[in-house]
């Protein structure tokens, strides 16, 4: 619409008509048009104005001479005294917000930096208000790596007008931008240190509710400290904002006018959307990229195109432009440079955690191969470290690029298996063929098939669904991102007599076709045989030595199963395991073993799934089946089966570790043994080693859910809750919610004394399979520890009934047996015996060793030596080789029985050697039992000082003992020791501590009343 009224239109038409005429000809023309007098008057006004307007609306009308009067005031002369307090020494720099000077603060007698705020902000009260708000927030950021802002002042000067300025920490040094410009990229080690400092400062700022908004290398100052160490300091916090007056005019384009620097703007900033802490994280990613590569990420000819690339392209990977960089940078930076703020690394803390991982790798190098240990550990239900599903975890260290050296074939190729191209219409081939192919290919150490988790993570970065089909193009991109060398894609098509099956290999870097191998298959012949031949031929094409091919030559049909149906079930089980966890995978593996009772790997997976689900008896049975068929598998699979057999079935950790060692030697690029070896370390409390291996597993295979849970638990065990939190945050960002992770969340909440968080977790527990009963059992322990034994029993019963409802009777029995132990420990002997008897009456449970062990403990603690000893004999006979049963639990049980009958010295003797495992993490329910019993027996022996030391040892491991009753009973033990030692004052404090723990205890809770009587009797 051009005109809003007919009159306007009429005037306009006439105006245009007469414009070209000679002025003298106009009146006559208008007369002829019979223009109404009013309109004509308007028109004549306009025509007159047209003649008179002259230079009106010329450029001079925009802003003439007085435009820059402001700048005259902005340069402050040295020697000027501002606000009767700051003496200007010299001009330093000009920034976006105004000029910076060095000045002497006469009041505080120190040098400061002064930033004079641009007059158009300083003098406009709306802007000034907003600016002051920012300053007020920024003042609260006190962090060694953030430039301190002291205050805001106004200096009144009648000559040049008012000057509003900030006083800030005075810094010296060059900016990161200058450093990179002059000296190029930073060494990785230095970059890690400086970026960690920047992240830490950013974290502090975000915690104070302030965004930086313009983080860039030019705003990071590198200052050399007195100790010669470099310190990175972020300047200009919160200073980059628009100063927009938002005067309500018709513009809609700039909803949020955040004024960053175009080269370092986040996508949301480019689009004018709201900024969040994630926006600063994005900038941090750009800074990190530039620091380690010396190049700008998303570089382009122009800023506009660079901005467009940020809006459109996936994050750049530093290792692409600079080979030899730690691949951890790729992960870190792509996590920061997610386009969608919601998918980005959500905190500077997370950034720092990823940096720390790289740092520890730099410091320690790759972890040493484990030594065969003479001590050994065991496994467990209440808090367990989980065995990895090793077959799925086939990560690799990248060594040699394929094309670099044709003459010397690479020692190891990292490959991505694309989805089979199946044009036969037979769905049976869809899932099965790649699984079979994986089994065939992973038996040779020459090839490393990229693990599922790694692929899924890459798909997420690529903005694809994790279930997206791995077409050749997608697989190539995944392969490039994850720095693989080869994409392998199978195909199967109909022919007149059967099928044509084959494999194509593509080079990742170029997408070039490297090799094709194919073979015809008659309808009557097994497809798997043909696939086997094709795969073998492909291995030759890819450069595997004939010696290696001869050595790892188990035919596919023997290695897996001749049944396509069984292999399909196996594939579905593996997929379900990856995507939904153990419970979902179980039926598929069961089915695979039913279809082909000789399918060794299906038994092995089944056993591991059972083990992880806390059903050791069934795990043992399945793994025994796998072990019996270990001659029918590839060498790789044999390691898997044998190590799991020792771990789950016999409990011989020495043999288990030896197997891992051989495995590591034969398949050094493999990650499969890493997690489980870490678990072995945890048995004996070798946390640092265990942590290192878990970290390695996460590094190589991000998204591997057991490792996150394990790592968080290990951190918690050594009282490093922040790191545990960070690991769990990473898991949550990856959308991992297995039982182990949820359990850790609960334990962390307990550790942090955050009952709301615990309730939240419980309330949400039914969202994930297998989580609800586990968390309920945890809650039962929490209640028991607090002396709320009735509620404890109730929760445990509920947990047991949920487990029973899903058919997991073994776990159900474990929940009840665990409750029996806790009731016994807390002095409710009758309840304990009742529950223990109930457990024993369940046939399935009576066979599970964990339930047996727990029941024995419950009887021993509740003074029923006879029942306890019967169970001990059974257990010992059933597990003659099991180190943890023989070397830890049996002595604990014997000591407990001796203690109950008043034989304190015998109890102490019985505990000999158990302290080797007392700090271990293993099932069922290990909770520094040795130290506790030791303390109790020493009390009985009237050795209060030594007893107190034992109890203190427990209390010093708060993150390890957590919510088990012993963690409370140790306080009571300490109080009693102190009382016995005659230290009434300290004893009183300790008694008060335990009363605080038991403040909501049941009225009938016997230990509480006993403790009160003791307390009153104190002198």
């Amino acid at each position, binding site marked *: *619409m*051009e*005109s*809003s*009224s007919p009159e306007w239109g009429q005037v*306009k038409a006439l*105006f*245009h008509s007469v*414009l070209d005429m000679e002025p003298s000809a106009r009146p006559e023309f208008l007369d002829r048009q019979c223009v109404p007098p009013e309109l004509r008057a308007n028109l004549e006004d*306009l*025509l007159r*104005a*047209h003649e*008179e307007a002259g230079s*009106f*609306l010329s*450029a001079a*009308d*925009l*802003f*003439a*001479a*007085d*435009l*820059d009067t402001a*700048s005259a005031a902005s340069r402050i002369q040295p020697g000027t005294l501002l606000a009767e307090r700051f003496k200007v020494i010299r001009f330093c720099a000009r920034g*976006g917000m105004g000029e910076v000077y060095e000045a002497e603060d006469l009041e505080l007698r120190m040098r400061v930096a002064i930033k004079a705020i641009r007059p*158009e902000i300083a*003098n*406009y*009260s*709306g802007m*000034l*208000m907003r600016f*002051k708000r920012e300053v007020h927030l920024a003042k609260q950021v006190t962090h060694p790596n953030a430039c301190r802002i002291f205050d805001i002042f*106004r200096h009144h000067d009648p000559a040049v007008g008012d000057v*509003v300025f900030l006083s800030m920490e005075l810094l010296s040094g060059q900016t990161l931008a200058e450093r990179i410009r002059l000296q190029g990229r930073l060494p990785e080690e230095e970059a890690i240190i400086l970026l960690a400092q920047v992240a830490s400062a950013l974290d502090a700022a975000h915690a104070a509710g302030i965004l930086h908004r313009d983080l860039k290398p030019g705003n990071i100052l590198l200052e050399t400290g007195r100790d010669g160490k470099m310190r990175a300091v972020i300047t200009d916090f919160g200073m980059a904002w*628009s100063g*927009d*007056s938002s*005067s309500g*005019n*018709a513009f809609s*384009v700039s909803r*949020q*006018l*955040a*004024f960053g620097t*175009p080269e370092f703007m986040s996508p949301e900033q*480019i*689009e*004018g959307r709201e900024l969040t802490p994630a926006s600063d994280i994005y900038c941090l990613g750009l800074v990190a990229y530039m620091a380690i590569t010396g190049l700008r990420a998303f*570089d382009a*000819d*122009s800023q*506009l*195109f660079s*901005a467009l690339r940020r*809006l459109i*392209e996936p994050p750049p990977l530093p290792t692409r432009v600079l080979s030899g960089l730690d691949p951890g940078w790729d992960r870190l930076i792509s996590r920061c440079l997610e386009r969608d703020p919601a998918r980005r690394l959500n905190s500077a803390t997370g950034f720092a955690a990823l940096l720390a991982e790289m740092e520890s790798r730099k410091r320690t190098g790759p972890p040493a191969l484990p030594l065969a240990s003479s001590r050994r550990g065991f496994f467990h239900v209440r808090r367990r470290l989980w065995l990895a599903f090793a077959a799925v975890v086939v990560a690799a260290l990248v060594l040699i690029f394929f094309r670099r050296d044709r003459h010397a074939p690479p020692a190891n190729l990292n490959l991505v298996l694309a989805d089979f191209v199946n044009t036969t219409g037979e769905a049976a081939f869809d899932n099965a063929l790649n699984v079979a192919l994986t089994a065939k290919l992973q038996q040779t150490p020459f090839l490393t098939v990229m693990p599922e988790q790694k692929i899924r993570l890459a798909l997420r970065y690529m903005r694809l669904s994790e279930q997206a089909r791995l077409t050749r193009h997608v697989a190539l991109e995944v392969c490039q991102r994850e720095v693989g060398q080869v994409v392998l894609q199978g195909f199967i098509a109909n022919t007149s007599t059967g099928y044509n099956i084959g494999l194509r290999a593509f080079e990742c870097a170029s997408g070039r076709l490297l090799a094709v191998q194919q073979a015809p298959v008659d309808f009557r012949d097994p497809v798997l045989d043909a696939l086997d031949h094709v795969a073998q031929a492909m291995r030759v094409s890819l450069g595997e030595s004939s010696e290696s091919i001869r050595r790892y030559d188990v035919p596919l049909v023997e290695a897996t199963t001749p049944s396509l149906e069984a292999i399909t079930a196996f594939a579905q089980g593996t997929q379900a395991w990856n995507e939904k966890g153990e419970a979902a995978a179980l039926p598929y593996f069961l089915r695979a073993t039913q279809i082909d009772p000789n399918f060794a790997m299906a038994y092995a997976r089944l056993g591991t799934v059972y083990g992880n689900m806390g059903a050791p008896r069934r795990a043992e049975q399945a793994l025994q089946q796998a072990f019996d068929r270990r001659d029918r598998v590839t060498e790789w699979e044999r390691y898997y089966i044998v190590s799991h057999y020792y771990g789950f079935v016999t409990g011989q950790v020495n043999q288990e570790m030896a197997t891992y060692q051989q495995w590591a030697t034969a398949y050094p690029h493999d990650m499969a043994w890493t997690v489980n070896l870490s678990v072995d370390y945890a048995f004996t409390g070798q946390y640092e080693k265990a942590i290192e291996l878990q970290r390695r597993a996460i590094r190589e295979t991000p998204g591997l859910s057991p490792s996150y849970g394990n790592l968080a638990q290990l951190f918690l065990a050594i009282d490093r809750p922040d790191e545990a939190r960070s690991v769990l945050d990473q898991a949550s960002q990856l959308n991992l919610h297995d039982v182990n992770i949820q359990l850790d969340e609960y334990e962390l909440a307990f550790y942090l004394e955050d009952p709301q968080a615990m309730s939240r977790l419980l309330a949400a527990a039914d969202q994930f399979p297998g989580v609800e009963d586990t968390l309920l059992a945890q809650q039962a322990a929490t209640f028991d520890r607090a002396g709320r034994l009735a509620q404890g029993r109730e929760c445990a019963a509920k947990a047991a009934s949920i487990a029973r409802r899903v058919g997991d009777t073994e776990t159900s029995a474990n929940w009840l047996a665990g409750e029996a132990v806790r009731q016994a420990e807390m002095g409710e002997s009758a309840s304990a015996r009742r529950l223990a008897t109930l457990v024993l009456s369940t046939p399935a449970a009576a066979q599970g060793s964990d339930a047996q062990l727990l029941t024995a403990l419950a009887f021993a603690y509740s003074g029923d030596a006879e029942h306890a000893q019967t169970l001990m004999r059974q257990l010992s006979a059933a597990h003659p080789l099991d180190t943890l049963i023989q070397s830890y639990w049996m002595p604990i049980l014997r000591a407990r029985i001796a203690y109950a009958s008043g034989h304190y010295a015998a109890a102490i003797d019985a505990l000999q050697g158990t302290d080797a495992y007392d700090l271990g993490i293993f099932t069922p329910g290990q909770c520094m039992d040795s130290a506790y019993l030791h303390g109790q027996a020493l009390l009985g022996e009237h050795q209060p000082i030594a007893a107190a030391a034992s109890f203190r040892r427990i209390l010093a491991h708060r993150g390890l003992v957590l919510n088990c009753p012993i963690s409370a009973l140790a306080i009571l033990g300490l109080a009693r020791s102190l009382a016995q030692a005659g230290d009434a004052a300290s004893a009183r404090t300790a008694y008060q501590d335990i009363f605080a723990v038991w403040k909501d205890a049941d009225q009938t809770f016997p230990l509480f009343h006993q403790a009160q009587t003791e307390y009153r009797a104190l002198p």
Partner: protein
Amino acid sequence: MESAPNEVTALLMRLSSGDKSIIERIMPLVYAELHRRANQYMRQERADHTLQPTALVHEVYLKLVQQREPTFRNRAHFYAISAQLMRRILTDHARARLATKRGSGNLEQGQDEAQPDAEPLQLRDDQPVRLLAINDALHDLALLDSRQEKVVEMRFFGGLTAEETAEVLGVSTRTVEREWSMARAWLYTRLKTRFNQA
């Protein structure tokens, strides 16, 4: 340098063909850059003390797009939107300047003073007032004739030539010139009584 993948190429083609949504996506960026440049201008001690919006927009255009991209045919479209943004920047700046002159704002109490444009403009012969008056009158003109408003915005605030304006509006150069003449005359009529025109 890494080559831009297909997506960017496609996007650039859309940009070249004047796809509005793409251009609008990056407008905040253009605004930021224009604003930054304008501020630089206003603070530089220049011989003529005159802000040339054409030069400014062109500079920003060159900076953001760079001459190496001849395919960005629809430069005029970019300019047209830049003109809108320039109008905003310049009027904002004028308000700030006006406020400076009046010495507004009490830092210690920090209360928010009434927005200057909420008050009747004083007829003073200085540039900020003049610019704001033109801007206000242009708002009024928009009610009568939106195309004329656009023409004035592009040519006056954005410094576009008649040809460029014509390309953006999809009309002939002649139409642009006529509209410009009338709009300028109308604005002049509205404003002449308020300025002490020399």
